[in-house]
């Protein structure tokens, strides 16, 4: 298995948000701040790794006609486990994310990975795919959340200590002091706007990269550079 390929796919080329455009519901709902995006991303990653591994594990046992209900039952169970664990052992974070944890079940990216990848390969690559897809999702959510938070409220990673513990309180920065706030970006329309511009940005970047790769380097670089 080509783990470099899996990594690159998950983080960038086939990123859940920026390339597959899946999981839009949590993407829009929780990205009001970088911390919320990070928390939701990490929770989804945990579910993705476990669900991919389990789907891969049962792939020889399950028949095609019952595979969807089986995957859904597995995913729903995992999400419920994450839900009760957070509620019990990370209660402050649960108060922030609680509403959205249950939504991971409905995140089509999780079932999507099970269908598109995990049911076809061994446990290790499947888990790796879950991890990388999850990290790519986390990256996207944190980026969108960060942009919305800075423009909308002038802060970055506010309340990070609730998510990562007091040691990470240093992350909490006020980017623009005495900022009056740009409410649109905290509210749902801001999520759509930021996502739209990021999608366009990724396309432009990918196009540039592709052009650079195609351009033959026949002429030697000038010596002075």
């Amino acid at each position, binding site marked *: 298995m080509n783990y470099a390929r899996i990594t690159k796919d998950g983080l960038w080329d086939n990123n859940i948000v920026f390339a597959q455009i899946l999981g839009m519901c949590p993407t829009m709902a929780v990205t009001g701040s970088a911390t919320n995006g990070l928390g939701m991303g990490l929770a989804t990653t945990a579910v993705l790794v476990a669900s991919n591994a389990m789907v891969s594990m049962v792939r020889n046992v399950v028949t095609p006609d019952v595979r969807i209900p089986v995957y859904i039952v597995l995913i729903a169970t995992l999400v419920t486990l994450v839900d009760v664990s957070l509620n019990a052992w990370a209660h402050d974070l649960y108060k922030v994310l609680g509403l959205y944890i249950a939504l991971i079940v409905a995140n089509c990216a999780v079932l999507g990975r099970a269908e598109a990848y995990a049911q076809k390969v061994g446990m290790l690559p499947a888990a790796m795919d879950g991890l990388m897809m999850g990290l790519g999702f986390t990256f996207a959510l944190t980026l969108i959340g960060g942009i919305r938070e800075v423009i909308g409220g002038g802060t970055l990673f506010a309340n990070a200590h609730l998510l990562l513990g007091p040691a990470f309180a240093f992350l909490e920065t006020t980017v623009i002091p005495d900022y*009056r706030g*740009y*409410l*649109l970006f905290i509210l749902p*329309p801001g999520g759509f*706007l930021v996502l*739209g511009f990021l999608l366009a940005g990724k396309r432009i970047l990918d196009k540039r990269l592709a052009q650079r790769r195609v351009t033959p380097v026949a002429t030697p670089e000038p010596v002075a550079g």
Partner: protein
Amino acid sequence: MISLTHAPHAHAPMAVGQIMATVMLALVPATLYGFWLYGWPALFLWSVAMATALLTEAASLFLQGRAAKPALLDGSAALTAWLLAVSLPPFAPWWVAAIGSAFAIVIAKQVFGGLGQNVFNPAMAARVMLLISFPVEMTMWAAPLPITSGHAPGFLQSLAITFGGADWANPADGMASASLLGHVKTEFTRGVDLASSLPAHFAAVQGGLMDAAWGNRAGSLGESAGLLLLAGGLFLIVRGVITWHAPVAMLLGVAAPALLAHALSPAHYLGVLPHLLSGGLMLAAFFIATDPVTSPNTPAGMFVFGLLCGLLAWIIRTWGGYPEGVAFAVMLMNSLAPIIDRYVKPRIYGRDRKGKSLQLEAKENAR
């Protein structure tokens, strides 16, 4: 590049630039009256909106690698900025106009592909964005203090209001006021009905309903000069730039439910005249709902479009969280315009209304 197509060719009586120029001409009286009523800050705000729109339009076109000059000269960006400027609170800070104008041009227009491609009316999209984002600045209305009256802020004070963030809303200065719809909505939430809140409002602005009708009232430039906008709209109809369908239907869409509800319970529902002359209704009916890009294509479609715009505006004003709903109503209907077009189709040349080809060949054969 010249593209040739088969007949039939439709003849456009005016070029885009000419249409835009005519619409701007129709806006001039209302705008000049607004400048007189609200003084320098209104003029500054208008200029900021205009300059930002032209700059961002040029920048967007440059980034897309398109020629900026023809697009700037057709006046569409300037008209968008103009419409936005006359819908803003006249004493709003400069950055409200700048952000609004940039949003209208970049996000509401150029992102969709530029002139003729946008789904939503750019000026209204920007106004809604501003209202949601900056509710404090967007709901602080200035009292009409004509520039000749002596109470108006001077030139330097006006600079401070628009560009310096001066706090002019101090009640002691007498410059702040409430718009009629805003006042009524606030009083309703306190449980004060119209029977007491309306007289209090008119006592505060020192005038009656008729005085307000002539424009001596707090609001945006477009709200205060409602009758001049009506005149401008009639001028556009006479010149053939717009048709009567959308404006008449939109005014009707507000007036009809207002008449009915006011007759049933005068203490809880505003009457027809305050509704028609308040907020952005006149501006929207004649200058926004008639935007050819974001409205349906047929006269019947325009009528339906206008009627629903008006009805939605009345519903939002009456039961919504915001005192004024015209901008929301127009945007909602913008998104429905393609569906209206689906049901109220223009007749295709050579076919009947149902899309069947006319039986010309059969006749010829028979002959």
